[in-house]
């Protein structure tokens, strides 16, 4: 496990639409590994590894963008109000910190409320950058920010902000690093704006016009106290998507992944996610339709600043993709 790379990936700035920094990190790593690398109009990065066969095209997509916040108002005293970039819950963020593109750090806190037993609305939260007035505040309306938390490796577990979906980006990079010759042309797509509109994967898949598309993303687990029942656990291997709330995996794609896992002796789990979706939902519907599926890394506390994954799951996801794409 290349923890140095994963640290770099998780800590790089990249809320939806503002992926320059994370794109630069990934671009530097993949450029020597790919036959060609380009950036699409909305900002998605594509690394092409040419195949040896008849030129069938397969897309592997992991999104570069991360959830974040955007300033909606700076009050007279210099406190900031904000809105969500992607799905964030007030419960997860009070007492946490955010970082703006220029490095400015803010603390998220909440107004005093009559009934403090209730979960506050996002409108009741504010960010304190330590300013003393509106004029003194180093940020303005429209500035995006991301949550802060370092990467910690503890035994076989990894804890960090933005494992969603930088661990997917990591899996794509590791797959590109290790993969030998493959029959298909492989398009490693590091997409933008997944957390808001899936627009990056949708538009890049349109351009590529692939024969098959796979998303590589995190999924939730059912293994925490009183979790919503879900048959995916952290540490039990990569999850092969059957369906989620935005997509039903193409049965042939799903079975191709299952067959590869069984052939290679990689443990796997069948995934049904009731709330949430991935880039595969958008890629499936471009042009005349694309057979699509998804390989998920089981992840606890998705969309919190402290997401948790298992190292073995990550490594086995790389192994599964390699087995599926380069059949021996």
């Amino acid at each position, binding site marked *: 496990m290349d923890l140095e790379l994963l640290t770099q990936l998780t800590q790089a700035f990249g809320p939806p*639409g503002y992926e320059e920094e994370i794109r630069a990190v990934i671009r530097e790593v993949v450029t020597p590994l790919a036959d060609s690398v380009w950036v*699409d109009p909305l900002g998605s990065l594509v690394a092409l590894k040419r195949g040896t066969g008849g030129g069938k095209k397969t897309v592997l997509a992991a999104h570069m963008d991360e959830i974040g916040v955007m300033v909606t108002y700076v009050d007279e005293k210099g406190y900031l109000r904000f*809105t969500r970039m992607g799905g964030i819950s007030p419960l997860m963020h009070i007492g946490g910190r955010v970082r703006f593109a220029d490095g400015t750090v803010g603390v998220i806190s909440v107004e005093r409320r009559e009934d403090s037993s209730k979960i506050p609305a996002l409108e009741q939260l504010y960010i304190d950058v330590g300013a003393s007035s509106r004029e003194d505040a180093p940020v303005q309306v429209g500035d995006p920010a991301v949550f802060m938390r370092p990467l910690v490796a503890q035994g076989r577990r990894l804890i960090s902000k933005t494992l969603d979906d930088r661990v997917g980006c990591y899996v794509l990079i590791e797959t590109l690093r290790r993969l030998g010759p493959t029959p298909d042309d492989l398009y490693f797509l590091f997409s933008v704006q997944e957390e808001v509109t899936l627009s990056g994967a949708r538009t890049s898949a349109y351009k590529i016009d692939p024969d098959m598309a796979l998303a590589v993303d995190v999924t939730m687990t059912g293994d925490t106290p009183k979790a919503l029942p879900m048959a995916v656990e952290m540490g039990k291997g990569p999850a092969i998507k059957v369906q989620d709330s935005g997509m039903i995996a193409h049965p042939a794609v799903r079975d191709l992944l299952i067959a590869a896992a069984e052939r290679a002796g990689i443990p796997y789990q069948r995934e049904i996610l009731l709330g949430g979706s991935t880039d595969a939902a958008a890629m499936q519907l471009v042009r005349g339709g694309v057979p699509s599926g998804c390989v998920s890394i089981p992840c606890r506390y998705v969309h919190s600043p402290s997401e948790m994954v298992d190292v073995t799951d990550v490594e086995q996801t790389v192994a599964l993709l390699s087995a599926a794409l380069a059949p021996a």
Partner: protein
Amino acid sequence: MNRDALLELLYMLSNTPGTSGDEIEVRRALRPHLEGHVESLRVDAMGNLIAHKKGTGAHDLRVLLTAHMDEVGLMVVDHTGEGALKVATSGSIDARLLPGLEVRVGPQARPGVIGIKAIHRADEDENVIPVSALTVDIGAHDREEALELAPIGTRITFATTAHPLGQLVAGKAFDDRAGCAALVALLQGPPLPCDVFGVFTVQEEVGLRGARVAGYTVAPAAAFVLEGTIADDLPKEEEGSPTSEIGKGPVLTVMDRSYVADPRLVRLVIQVATAAGIPYQFKQPGIGGTDAGTIHFTREGVPAITLAIPCRYIHGPVALLDPQDLEHTVALLRASLEQLTPEVIQRP
């Protein structure tokens, strides 16, 4: 275009009825103001009016500019035995503002009134009457007459006639006839360095539908969406963020519910506004959606931004705007397009 001509155009467009899917009169009203100023003018399968204005040849960027023709309104869905019309909303309308309003029904713009219980007979604590319980009175004597005058599917719009109001102007459908007026003003001006496709779109209010296919057809390198947007700058109980404010210039979208504006275009517009001394403001991020929401994800992706004229009381019978904001929007759009070069949006 001078202010008088611009306001005359705005008034004419505001007074023209055109709900989603029934934009034919707006399209017809726009045509004579575009002919002679653009190289071609055509209508696509959805009803979008597409005007192509060739650039000076300075570079080969294709730029899509849109403003939507449709307005919110009502549609006839049934008739009562007494000859009144049952209606549903077309686009989002606050049911609280409807009772007692004067409306125009169908292609003949037949006068109608939305029924209201006399205050003498109303319960003091009566709740908001849902649209499904409202009826529109067109003076028909019975069901047969109502059916003939306003069959199911007939469009209903607010009856407002546009007029000056102090330093402001008042009218219906400023969302988005203000954007349409701004786009006409731009297209009537001299050619720009880029190739411009000015598209007057359909069905924005019901799901950004016309813009989606227009984005596909034009396949532009960048898109600028023109809107009439929410101004909620009236006094509030506590200090808070207005969506936008009247008189403070064109409103830039950084992010709304439908998309994230391209940061490079946002920077460009800010630089241009600053250099030209044109005031501007940000729309409160995270609110509303515009045609950019479907344009940006067409084909290989389209960097997009929304410029809007701040309007009070949109989606109601009378909206207000400041003519200066309208003029500034035209000026800022033109200046931004003059500075838009391939370098601004290229991805090295």
